[in-house]
């Protein structure tokens, strides 16, 4: 966060055809309650749509939720699209992603992966850290 009056903006997006949106919505709400400005795309977003939303909304971070198993195809497409548009912002993801894919995804440019059972506090703390938002206790 750059100033006290302008909260960091976070895009929460659901790439692919997957309709499981419970996690994305809960995270969106938790980040909003923590003071972030959250833009939620809804489901069925193509990588191009997500990149476009990130550019248009001028977001500071992106959270991607995917449970369909298409993460190895869709997440790199999003990261590459962001790079092509000159956006160098942290991208984190959650959903059903096997541990053995974490390394590959991080190499492709995903900053962090929050698997099942992650506490909301960890996601909020992470988002504060990567967007330079001080926590209320600081």
């Amino acid at each position: 966060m750059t100033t006290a009056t302008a909260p960091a903006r976070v895009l929460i997006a659901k790439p692919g055809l997957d309709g499981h949106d419970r996690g994305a919505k809960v995270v969106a709400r938790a980040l909003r309650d923590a003071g972030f400005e959250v833009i939620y795309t809804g489901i069925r977003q193509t990588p191009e749509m997500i990149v476009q939303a990130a550019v248009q909304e001028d977001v500071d971070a992106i959270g991607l939720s995917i449970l369909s198993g298409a993460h190895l195809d869709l997440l790199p497409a999003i990261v590459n699209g962001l790079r092509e548009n000159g956006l160098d912002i942290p991208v984190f993801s959650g959903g059903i992603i096997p541990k053995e894919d974490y390394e590959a995804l991080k190499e492709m440019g995903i900053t962090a992966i929050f698997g099942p059972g992650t506490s909301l506090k960890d996601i909020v703390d992470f988002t504060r850290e990567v967007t330079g938002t001080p926590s209320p206790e600081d």
Partner: protein
Amino acid sequence: MTNGSNMSKQEWLESVYGPAVARNKERQDRFETTSEIEIDPLYDPSDVTESEFASKVGYPARYPFTRGVQPTMYRGRLWTMRQYAGFASAEETNRRYQYLLEQGQTGLSMAFDLPTQTGYDSDAPLALGEVGKVGVPVAHVEDMAIVFDGIDLAKVSTSMTINATASILLAYYIAVARREGVPTKELRGTVQNDILKEYIARGTYIYPPAPSMRLITDLFEYCATETPAWNTISISGYHMREAGSTAAQEIAFTIADAIAYVDAAIAAGLKVDDFGPQLSFFFVAQSNLLEEVAKYRAARRLWAKIMVERFGSENPRSQMLRFHTQTAGVTLTAQQPDNNVVRSTLQALAAVLGGTQSLHVNSKDEALALPSEDAVTLSLRTQQVLAYESGVTDTVDPLAGSYFVEAMTDKLEEEARAYIERIDKMGGAVRAIENGFPQQEIGDASYKYQTQVESRERTVVGVNSFTSGDETPMEILRINPEETKRQVDRLERVRRERDGHKAQATLEHLEAVAKSSDNSMPAIIDCVEAGATTGEICDVLRGVFGMHKELLVV
């Protein structure tokens, strides 16, 4: 001191329970179910009105069916053991089905991949990364024929989790049966065909509500005469509960959707008792054992009353709420995955004690991936242990008469009815969904649940309590990319080798039918028999009906 044998509940609360709690506080200030119904420390005959027992609870196979829909329940025939499966390709899925049947499974349950569910062919740009991931891709009739290669459609019953594209997938199944000379009147199974919950929770809609409802009632009408043993819909609370609803909301939103389907079918000119017997339901089995048992009993009673009181049904078959159950995917944890076996067993027991007609037990590895063959086998064995070793199958509705279960059944019915009244006032389920009402209620409940887990007000073993550090990685199922290639190659071959003019003509005919008010099923069957693909058929319908736009409710 008063002797326990001549004490009332009130006296016991005041003279025994009260002082005990004053000395030692209970574990919680308030005990409640997932539906926020407060649980008393004790239930006794004063919680169940004796005079109402006969009319409320009654007998199995008799209105209002609280105790179950069959006279003998599991003494006569066990529930259908139906593990939801499908992945990679038609060939791999056929192998898994053959394996499950060899292991003693008694019905099939098809999982389709997302392109098939949302109306895209395996080579469509939107299918990138999704082919064969959450289910089997079925892009044309040849895929369906391979899935059922060596499986007798006259003998097996097949449930298909398919909604927006239900007519097309049923058409493939009918086409395969015709090829094999199996009379369609003998086909047994279910298409989920429940679009309303897709708008609320599951997300595989294609068209807006009105044309979607028309496709559904077309299927009802067609199946009433052509496939009378087929369940034309499985009205589902499962996904709404998985998305975060409470048990009371699960009953209420499911039955509100059911009311909307019955209304739509009646408006389309059908008679309630012509299509009513083919309606079926689908609920989750969560971990709160007794609340879940009460939920199934309350749902059965509520549906029976609604069919009689609201729709004037006279056929008991239409009034019976027959349901499939699946254990709760959301309760599976990636941490200490062996615990999931215990959770699923407990949940499956709830379904059986609640009188389910068929059951899927989730596998321990599903917080990470689709289940491996070993994990699925264990799920099937769980069902078999419950069926053959637990003894709970030996009498009908064994928990009836439990003061607590009966009181909870009453309470859940009451809460669900109150929600349905609210939805009625909004103009019914379709309007309520367009206004985002169930979505908002579910979002609120799921967020509340998560904050309770965060604050440890709610314990999740191995996740927020009793944790044990690093876990040894499990062997999980991975989809071989070669299978996708095989799928796409076959799709290209089917497009090349079919009579292109004929396929085109059937698609054009479908377009004309879609624009008219004629039943769409025969035209869709013509398309699939001419080799048209899932994507092509949906492109035609998207052109006529348009596409649904999500109402964002966060």
